[in-house]
């Protein structure tokens, strides 16, 4: 399918037809895009299943896909007749699955939040980190690490990170708001300023920290899924499910993308949708940051990648970005924990080193052929 698509694109470029037009026609017919984006969703779902099987199977203990499937099916009471030994089952269910679920939740949250934020800011550079949620989370965690207090036991660290994420976003939004409205440019610049302040404080913490603390700081600033256990993953999963409240607002996002004034004249209050998206994104991404630290690039890149394939309709783009974010993070985590065995690379190193060059490649190709990016 990919090859066919590429061939068609090449032909379109030669004929001067905007690239993607035929692919869309083929994919959507003339009908509504929501129902006929089915092939893209089918592909994303298959990729997600493959990614889960690979992540659950690959590692120090190898578990073949059939056994992984058996472990998962046994959990929901379906028997496959395949025997899996106890150790392998423990590895799959007790160690790898929490990490997989965390990757799916964090990735889906970042993807969906990124697509929504790019829409409400009408800006291709918007991503969850911009509104302060990522650096705020890291800062909250690092303050706790440096001061060494833990009033709530194991919950202290994720809660401090979550609180930091909410607090810094609140500060950014509060500073950017005037007369009951937010100017997009003001909000983005406020975000940039607060992020650099947070970055400075994190740097200061690194300067003051001892070796062990420094390792923890790196964990928070470059992200890692190594801390995943069922008890920390479940709250994150609940929050990610809560993030689905963004989906009914996809149509409003389409109109906002067309223009703030245009949206108003079509009956949509941009400011209301904007507040909703910022609040929900902060909660969803904040929950992920609280457990996994800062994961760069996913929220920025995934919506862009998917827009190229399925177009900018948010009714399709939002769920696709959730799936795409989950797949990308599963892939990145697989690389992070297998490439320098027995050590683990920080997740942010992998997402940035793979995502960055690929993003540049796409950016150049799309602007050259299409004259526009989004």
């Amino acid at each position, binding site marked *: 399918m990919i090859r066919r698509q590429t061939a068609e694109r090449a032909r379109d470029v030669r004929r001067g037809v905007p690239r993607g037009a035929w692919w869309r026609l083929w994919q959507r017919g003339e009908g509504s895009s929501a129902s006929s984006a089915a092939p893209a969703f089918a592909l994303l779902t298959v990729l997600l299943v493959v990614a889960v099987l690979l992540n659950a199977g690959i590692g120090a203990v190898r578990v073949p896909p059939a056994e992984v499937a058996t472990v998962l099916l046994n959990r929901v009471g379906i028997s496959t007749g395949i025997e899996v030994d106890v150790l392998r089952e423990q590895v799959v269910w007790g160690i790898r699955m929490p990490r997989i679920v965390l990757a799916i939740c964090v990735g889906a949250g970042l993807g969906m939040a990124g697509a929504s934020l790019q829409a409400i800011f009408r800006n291709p550079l918007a991503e969850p980190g911009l509104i302060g949620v990522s650096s705020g989370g890291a800062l909250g965690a690092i303050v706790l690490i440096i001061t060494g207090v833990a009033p709530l036991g194991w919950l202290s660290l994720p809660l401090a990170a979550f609180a930091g994420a909410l607090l810094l976003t609140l500060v950014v939004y509060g500073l950017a708001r005037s007369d009951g409205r937010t100017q997009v440019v003001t909000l983005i610049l406020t975000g940039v300023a607060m992020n650099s302040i947070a970055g400075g404080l994190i740097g200061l913490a690194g300067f003051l920290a001892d070796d062990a603390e420094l390792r923890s700081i790196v964990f928070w600033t470059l992200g890692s899924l190594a801390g995943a256990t069922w008890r920390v993953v479940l709250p994150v999963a609940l929050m990610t499910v809560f993030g689905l409240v963004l989906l009914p607002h996809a149509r409003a996002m389409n109109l906002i993308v067309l223009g703030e*004034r245009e949206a108003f004249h*079509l009956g949509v209050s941009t400011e209301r949708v904007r507040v909703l998206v910022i609040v929900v994104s902060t909660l969803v991404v904040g929950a992920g940051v609280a457990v996994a630290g800062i994961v760069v690039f996913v929220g920025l890149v995934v919506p862009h990648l998917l827009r190229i394939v399925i177009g900018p309709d948010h009714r399709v783009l939002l769920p696709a970005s959730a799936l795409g974010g989950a797949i990308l993070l599963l892939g990145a985590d697989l690389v992070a924990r297998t490439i320098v065995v027995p050590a683990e690379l920080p997740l942010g190193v992998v997402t940035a080193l793979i995502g960055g060059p690929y993003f540049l490649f796409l950016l150049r190709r799309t602007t050259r052929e299409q*004259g526009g990016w*989004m």
Partner: protein
Amino acid sequence: MTALLAVDGVSFEVGQARLLDDASFEAERGELLAVVGPNGAGKSTLLRIVAGELAPTSGSVRIEGRPIADMRAMEQARLRAVLPQQTPTTFRFTAREVVSFARVPWLRTPESGDDEAAVEEAMRLTGVESMATRTFPTLSGGEQTLVSLARVLAQRTPLVLLDEPTSALDLRHQALVMDLLHDITARGISVVAVLHDLNLAATHAARVLLLHGGRVAAFGPAREVLEASLLSEVFEHPVRVIEDPVEGNPLVLPERRVRTLAG
């Protein structure tokens, strides 16, 4: 019967500046009303107030007798469609998708049954069917204006506001758009358009609203409003008004202040 649009004593102040001062006018059903005036006269401010984007400091705007201040955005969107000066989106929606957005205010109403027909008809009237599958950012400025105009028509509202709809268009497309406006006013739709080109206003508008320094300098039939001494004063530049030998409508020509040697 009340006028479709009634603007009553509207003023708008920002800080010390009074951008609009006690402006009143009304638009009847099926009327093409042109708003003209020099730069800074308050044309765009007035249009934005009628469009509900700005709240007037005092005065009221009523559509079908109801103050827009009391209506939710969605109710207003079913009465009034607006074409801003330009739609700057960089997202790659197709022209057809952009036009179909016009049907959002009619979601979950009986009118949503007309969605397809409204979109098709609007695209046919504006002649943008051939661009249906092209993405909006790849269209030229003039094509984007036509697609946006199609979107405004597909909204099927009794009132349409246009902010300089012809400024990005060449001669042929200007004529096409103005003819189109005649067609839609013939169906009983009221069009209020800010026009920079006095001659377009003179040729096509039933009535002309001339603004000067935030005040209504004149409001009435084009022949009465577009008068040489008044225009010369408002635009601070001498003009001649002659009669179009074919159509009979007034034509406004600016005088050359400095004659060249040859002249």
